[in-house]
């Protein structure tokens, strides 16, 4: 029900629509709820709508933090 996935915008279309790509699958979605979304951005897609933008810097920071937190076992 709450399935929402990050997908990359490959084409901006008319009427607040966009084409996104996820794992090789192309799909047309609405970006009316994420009007700031640009070509190449990752958006979170839920029930055919982009509900938010994914911040790449924050994504990298989270991955770096995982690695840091997981260091315990190595010590």
């Amino acid at each position: 029900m709450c399935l929402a996935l990050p997908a990359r915008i490959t084409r901006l279309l008319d009427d607040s629509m966009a084409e996104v790509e996820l794992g090789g699958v192309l799909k047309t979605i609405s970006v009316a709820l994420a009007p700031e979304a640009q070509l190449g951005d990752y958006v979170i897609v839920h029930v055919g709508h982009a509900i938010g933008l994914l911040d790449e810097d924050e994504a990298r920071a989270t991955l770096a933090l995982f690695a840091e937190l997981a260091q315990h076992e190595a010590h």
Partner: protein
Amino acid sequence: MKHIDAYRNGDLARGLAATIAAEAKPERQYNFMEFCGGHTHALARYGIVDLLPANVRMVHGPGCPVCVLPIGRIDMAIALALEHTAIVCTYGDVLRVPASAGLSMQKAKARGADIRMVYSPADVLQIARNNPSREVVFLAIGFETTTPPTALVIQQAQRENLPNFSVLCCHVLTPSAIGHILTSPEVAEWGTLPLDGFVGPAHVSIIIGSAPYEPFATQFNKPVVISGFEPLDVMQSILMLVRQVNTGRAEVENQFTRVVTREGNRAAQAVCEQVFELRDSFEWRGLGEVAHSALQIRPAYAAWDAEKKFTLPYLRVPDHKQCDCGAILRGVKRPTDCKLFATVCTPDNPMGSCMVSSEGSCAAHYTYGRFRDIPLVTHP
């Protein structure tokens, strides 16, 4: 897949598990409620429960919108399809939820009702455009994540002056349910677990932001960590909760910073504000009536409100007597405590709502966890 696979790395998960085990104090018990069904599913599917130390227990909360949809609301949708011969559309999971008289939307469809599964509310608008001589109703369910797309299609229907489209609005609000869990006198009656903190909603928080959870930290002294749905996200959030408890803090922390901000999605909030207003009260399956916990369509959009258009009455219907979904949704009981679990109630034949959606506590435990309860026997 980028931004998915990296958050499922097994080596990092084992390292995080070791860190949690090292930091959880052996002399105390940690009970954290994960609110979202997506978290429940992640915990079961990826075996996270097995990676946690015995004194860190995850309690499943009422955060699956399919699970908390009461029977009476599904009965309304079935009545629209069978008695008003409307085309009724909804999301897939809802079709199998048990309703009155042994029916579900799926079974009503087998009796000739025109019930259709949709992926997006925009698809329902298209069905209405394609069938101008039929009434087309969208049974709209879900938390704050699903609400803005519903608001958009109602506005679109108004712009197009689409007279045969309407929405049976069953959208519910997350903070109200968490508040209810903490304050309801009924919870005291049922008995409840002492909760040490919450794993806060992921996608809901994209819309509403992390700020609405701040009262739970300040008023109830409960830590909340907004968490992503991937296994490493959930494990990091559990570690953040353990650290808050250990240091006596009760704050709202945001693990899901790659998508969630404190303010949330302003564009989505604005469209919801235009189309919806608070209901005085709404029945949740398992929780009963919860004040100010759901939305209804504003009078300006009454022409697209199925409840007004068809003057639909809501009738409360009790759950199956043996069904423990109510206690399970409140974290008082576990799926295996229910007499119906894995006997007459299975994902193929769900009796209670927790067994319907893959995100429901019972379905998640049935699919991924039930053999964990059986001790291993080694043959000589």
